């Protein structure tokens, strides 16, 4: 059988490896997948590497250094389809908190010789540098969504990735609303589905790790948090600035509540 299998590559930029781990965590399904695709580059899993071009590249991590800025262009040029996976690759990740501070001050706070480091001012998503076909949000990304995206590409259809909010998932599970019933601040109404309303099922408010959903109104929720739940501006800013701090909806809303000192 001389049918060429599509070549899959998995790439890492600034990140925790957690999203790649979701690919490894596909377990049996990964073994099945490896029968129909050629895992050509997946450094965390294999020391065998094949040169591009690649049919599909999964990219984890955000762009934070001059070298990585070049590398993402090389990967784009070698990839037919590029899928950004996880909060780092789709929004800049937790390290995008630096976008709201002076990076040299952060470097000085952590390293005694910050001059030895070469970093960009901002941590940015892959889409800020190159064209991206699909984005899968989440910190970490949901492995079923990764599998769905890859299966869809193999079958030549569009991936079926939910774009509704966590709130919808929560209602579907029949969970008691933590905000209404217990007064817990919750980002579920404005956060993209994918986790299965995990935090509310553990009696805590959603902290937005899947990032903003497309058609929601962040400003309206934040007004509720401020006026009905009594959160101060600094608290609202902290809620919006975590793993998806750099996502446009969350970033813009957070700037509106930022104390004017900066």
């Amino acid at each position, binding site marked *: 059988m001389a049918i060429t299998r599509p070549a899959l590559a998995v790439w*890492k930029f*600034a*990140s*925790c*490896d*957690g*999203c790649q*781990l*979701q690919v*490894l*965590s596909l*377990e*049996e399904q*990964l*073994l099945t997948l*490896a029968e129909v695709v050629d*895992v050509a580059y997946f*450094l*965390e*899993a*294999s*020391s*065998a*590497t094949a040169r591009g071009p690649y049919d599909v590249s999964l990219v984890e991590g955000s762009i*934070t*250094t001059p070298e*990585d800025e070049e590398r993402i262009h090389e990967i784009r040029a070698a990839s037919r389809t590029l899928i950004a996976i996880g909060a780092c690759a789709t929004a800049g*990740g*937790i*390290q995008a*908190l*630096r976008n709201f*501070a002076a*990076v040299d*001050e*952060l*470097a000085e*706070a*952590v*390293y*005694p*010789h910050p001059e*030895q*480091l070469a*970093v960009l001012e901002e*941590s940015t998503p892959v889409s800020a540098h190159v064209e991206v076909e699909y984005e899968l949000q989440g*910190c*970490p990304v949901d492995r079923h969504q990764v599998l769905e995206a890859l299966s869809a590409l193999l079958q030549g259809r569009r991936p079926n990735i939910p774009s509704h909010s966590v709130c919808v998932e929560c209602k579907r599970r029949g969970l008691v609303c933590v905000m209404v019933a217990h007064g817990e601040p919750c980002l579920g109404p404005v956060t993209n589905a994918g*986790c299965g309303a*995990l*935090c509310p*099922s*553990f*009696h*805590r408010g959603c*902290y937005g*790790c899947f990032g903003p959903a497309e058609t929601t109104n962040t400003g309206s929720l934040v007004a509720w948090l401020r006026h009905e739940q009594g959160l101060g501006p600094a608290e609202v800013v*902290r809620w919006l600035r*975590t*793993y998806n701090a750099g996502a446009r909806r969350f970033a813009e809303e957070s700037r509106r509540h930022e104390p004017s000192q900066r």
Partner: protein
Amino acid sequence: MSHRSADPIRDLSVEALARVEGEGAMRVRLRGEEVEDIALSIYEPPRFFEGMLVGRRMEEPPDITARICGICPVAYQMSACRAIEDACGVAIDPPLRELRRLMYCGEWIESHALHIYLLHAPDFLGYHSALELSRDHKELVQQALALRRAGTDLVTAIGGRATHPVNVRLGGFHRLPDRDALAALRPQLERARDQAAETVRLVAGFTMPDLAIDHAFVSLAEPGRYPIDAGRLVSSTGLDVPVQEFEEHLIEEQVARSTAFHARLAGHDGAILVGPLARYALARDELSPTARELADEVGLPPVVTNPYQSIVVRAIEVVEACVEALAILEAYEQPDRAHVPVPPRAGIGYGATEAPRGILLHRYEIDADGLITAARIVPPTAQNQRAVEDDLYDFVAAHAHLDDEGLRWQLEQAIRNYDPCISCATHFLDLTVERR
């Protein structure tokens, strides 16, 4: 060997080391068969966690620092909780501590099984990856995945998900796990324990090169228990201090080639080693009879100095984690409350736990309103970096006769002995061998 300046320089380069967590580089310079320089350089982009934590609320580090490492988020959550609870002068209820330890056992099983089978075993069996291995030994890889799954299922039952669990908080948990869900884990953990025992026998039979290291072993220690979630800081050089004194004894320095720090013990010139070899050397007596008998059965000495055998020690620790998890489940009584209150108090707190790769230290300064004013995190891979470099120096010296391809293959294997987690230390490996 005499210095022969007429010898050509050999430059060897492996652009990126596979099957490790994170990004880094190994650079080797050889003149003839003499090693001139060796450096483990970590180029994982710095993410400035310690700087980002300043100004955040004290409730946030368990979730935020988990994002340092997708392989061992539970370790970060546990060390962060302990440090902040220490700053606030809060001790959690004993049953809550047991529940934390139970969850931690899950991460040990998951992380060690990943390293043993998916990252490390392919080296010994001559494959590039577990995917390749599965073509010839499908059953073995399926067993490995089932073992790992026992760990991820345990963490998920308590934490909600295996990567960046959502249920851990200061003082305990957001919600107590469902009793039935915990009880349902037992048959799976019993199978995992037996499978882990088979794993010990399998990996003990691998052919391993001879190598002996001589570093100061450092681990946590607690009478009556194998070190996992708590303990004093002890070493093979006689150190025995509370974690609160770690800064006086563990010195960290920045080196130009790396975004991670290098660590050593005060008053001790040599390198230190944390992780499975250190824990086993310092706490073998605290292993369960099941784990100890297995170590004896496969002829594992009381102190293991060959880093290749770390795969056997890791397997022993998987057995231990399964046995311990089953013991905790056996004695489990639903705690009275999901968490104890942790009111803010101005002060400094220290927390250390045993991540699968070794001691993970956190230190926080908190103000009276519960805002973080300073944070410091010392991950295991940073503590081990110097030991890894020293060992590789000796290793390359002994193998310099090999051609570039052979040397590169063997060096990569040698590095994987230490299970480096470079995301943690900031912090993957690209290997360069330069021959003069």
